[in-house]
């Protein structure tokens, strides 16, 4: 009788298959388990060692704009064996720029990129760092009297030129429509300690020189020392009988105020705005045609340029004293790149 033997073999076979199925189940479980643990970060992450440790310091390390600068520097540092640390971001207490610098020096970092807030206090720390052979690069705001190795700034002249070109375009169009001089008002920021606004204004004047006869270029200093000043100032300007045909803003706050006023007082189309930076209302303004264009220096470009300078200095011990970041212009044509 074959059937019996076949039965027996079949049974053994079933047992083996069941066993194999259980083993497969266990295998799947193990793989799944490892995956869960890995996903949760229990297992060690991919870690890379870097050659240099550079602290990037600002008074407000959690500010979103600053974080973008940090991110730009960090991404750029990956290729150069430089690890950028947003110093103080993880600390629970609030620390001033010089305190953070002091910590960074005590922590013996390889380099410091700092946005100067209190020039005098920070300068002392910069000098102390230099004394311990830690190079310092200032970014956005400078401490000219210190021993910093370099200063990364926006290319103010280029910004001015950009503004000027925009003014040229709009003014020429408007001049053709209306038989009068086009009023252009540049809002200057009183808070700026540096000469930057003046450089920008000079660049604007020089760029618009060709149509100087057709425009009436004025500047207005907005007092930003107190809070909420910007909006009041812009409102006064708009409601004036000889309201400006073109308003040029040099800060994000001014741009927002200008947009708000133009919309509130129904001056859309009559007053063109050339804004600054790419905050949400500006981008919306450009999309709706309230804002002609906006100039900005990309924060990641800031970070990238500072990192490149630090890399150069760490490896070659030499760097030019001024590094500039080129501005970008946002118009209705390229706005998608910024809204995404």
């Amino acid at each position: 009788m074959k059937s019996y033997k076949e039965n027996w073999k079949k049974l053994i076979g079933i047992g083996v298959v069941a066993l194999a199925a259980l083993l497969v189940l266990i295998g799947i479980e193990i793989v799944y388990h490892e995956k869960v643990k890995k996903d949760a970060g229990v297992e060690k992450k991919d870690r890379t060692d870097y050659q240099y440790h550079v602290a990037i310091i600002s008074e407000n390390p959690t500010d979103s704009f600053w974080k973008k600068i940090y991110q730009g520097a960090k991404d750029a540092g990956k290729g150069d064996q430089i690890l950028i640390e947003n110093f103080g971001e993880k600390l629970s207490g609030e620390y001033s720029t010089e305190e953070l610098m002091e910590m960074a020096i005590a922590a013996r970092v390889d380099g410091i990129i700092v946005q100067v807030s209190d020039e005098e206090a920070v300068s002392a720390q910069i000098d102390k760092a230099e004394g311990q052979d830690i190079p310092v690069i200032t970014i956005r705001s400078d401490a000219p009297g210190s021993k910093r190795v370099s200063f990364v700034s926006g290319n103010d002249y280029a910004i001015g030129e950009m503004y000027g070109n925009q003014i040229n375009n709009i003014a020429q169009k408007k001049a053709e429509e209306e038989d009068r001089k086009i009023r252009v008002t540049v809002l200057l920021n009183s808070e700026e300690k540096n000469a930057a606004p003046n450089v920008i204004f000079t660049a604007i004047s020089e760029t618009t020189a060709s149509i100087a006869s057709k425009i009436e270029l004025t500047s207005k200093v907005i007092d930003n020392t107190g809070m909420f000043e910007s909006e009041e100032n812009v409102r006064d300007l708009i409601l004036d009988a000889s309201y400006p045909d073109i308003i040029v803003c040099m800060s994000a706050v001014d741009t927002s105020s200008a947009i708000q006023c133009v919309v509130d007082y129904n001056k859309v189309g009559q007053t063109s705005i050339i804004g600054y930076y790419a905050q949400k209302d500006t981008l919306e303004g450009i999309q709706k045609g309230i804002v002609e264009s906006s100039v900005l220096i990309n924060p990641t470009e800031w970070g990238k340029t500072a990192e490149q300078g630090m890399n150069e200095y760490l490896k070659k011990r030499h760097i030019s004293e001024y590094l500039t970041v080129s501005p970008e212009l946002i118009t209705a044509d390229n706005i998608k790149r910024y809204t995404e």
Partner: protein
Amino acid sequence: MEKRKSIRIRLLEVYVVIMLLVFAINIYIVHSQSQAIRQIDGVYNSNIQLNDISTTLEKMQTSLYQYLNTKSSDELENYYLYEQDYRNRISELNEKTVNDQNLLMEKNIRNMSDTYLEKTASAIEAKRGRNVSRYNEEYSKAKKLYDYLQSCVRSLNTSVFLENSQNYSVLRSTLNYVVGFSMFLLTVSMLVALVWIVMMTRTITRPLIKLAEAANTIAKGGLEVDFPIIDTGDEISTVAKACNKMMNSIRDYIRQTKENYERESRMIENELSMKNDLKEAQLKYLQAQINPHFLFNSLNAAAQLAMMEGAENTCLFVQNMADFFRYNVRKMEKDTTLKEELELVDSYIYILNVRFAGEIHYTKQIDERVTGTMMPSMILQPLIENAVNHGIRELQGEGKIHLSVYSDGGMVCVKVEDNGVGIEQEVIEKIMRGESAHSHSQRDSAGIGMDNVINRLKRYYNMEHVIEIRRREERGTEVVIYLKREDVR
């Protein structure tokens, strides 16, 4: 059958496999659970470590302050103890530039600690040198660094704690998952094992159960049932085979006994019926016995009387009559020879011819060599009687009877032919089947039917083919009886 596996081995196979399976699963479960628990245990280690660092740092700072304040040597000793402890703890922290925020913080803490320890060392040195302004300055620097360090450790602790909490909850859930999966695995394996065991044991016991069923049937008397032989190669098939052999010999024995019994009973039956037939014949003749004896004596007396009176024909007739009856009286019980039977036929024909005035023309052709053949008595006379009564009596004109005796192989054939009315085929068949014998015998004067004749011949010679009855082609009937020759019997 390549391998003979006994039931014990088979059962052992099943249990060992199941045990191994369950054991393996248990090992796996215990392993994964203990692993998960170990991981959970290890989660907050880093926090404990950081707390220790913070505490040691605090103690060290206090000792430093006390020493600078009082210049107590105890405090200095304490300070050095704490410092050593602190250094040991710090040395466990990461010192590489790594793209992980917590590890980077560890590096910062480590480096800041080094800076801090430099400051404290120079403060102590200045204290020893009684350089008041310097140790004041160094202490305030160290104090500042101490604050920074504590802040950094706290922040790192918080950050690590957050990460650990996250890990902990994940690990907790994986532990739950592991437990759940283990339960599932155990249940599944138990079910699989259960089904498997049931199937396996059923395969093992099924032949046994069949064997038992067969045994039950046999016990109830079903001797024809065979034990099912399932070639399991184990003890069961051996038992089944042995039982089958036993059953076969039992059946053989029973068959033999039955055959013997049947043969015996057949023989007894044969003897009985032979006796029965003889009794029947005897009875018939006993009825007539009184008359034959009386008749025989009377006839003898009559023959003498006729002789004395000179009536020769009468004397011959009576003489024949006397012979005929004497034969009847004398020969019924015993065997006789063919010769004597032939003589009886002669007497019988003579009597009939006298009775019917020579109507029967009797001729015979005898092979004298075989007349000594032994045969039962009263066989030929009934044949002649039938030939006369059913054949030529109803015939108008001369009736002819021809009797011939000749040998044919081992047989002696006695043929009786008549030219009578002939016999119907159905009647022949009936006679051969022994059916209508009695209806004939009633009309027979001698009272002996054909079936009696045939049966006696069959039994006497113990053979089937003893008679042939044919309707003759020209007219009349032809009856042949076969007698076995002495020399071939």
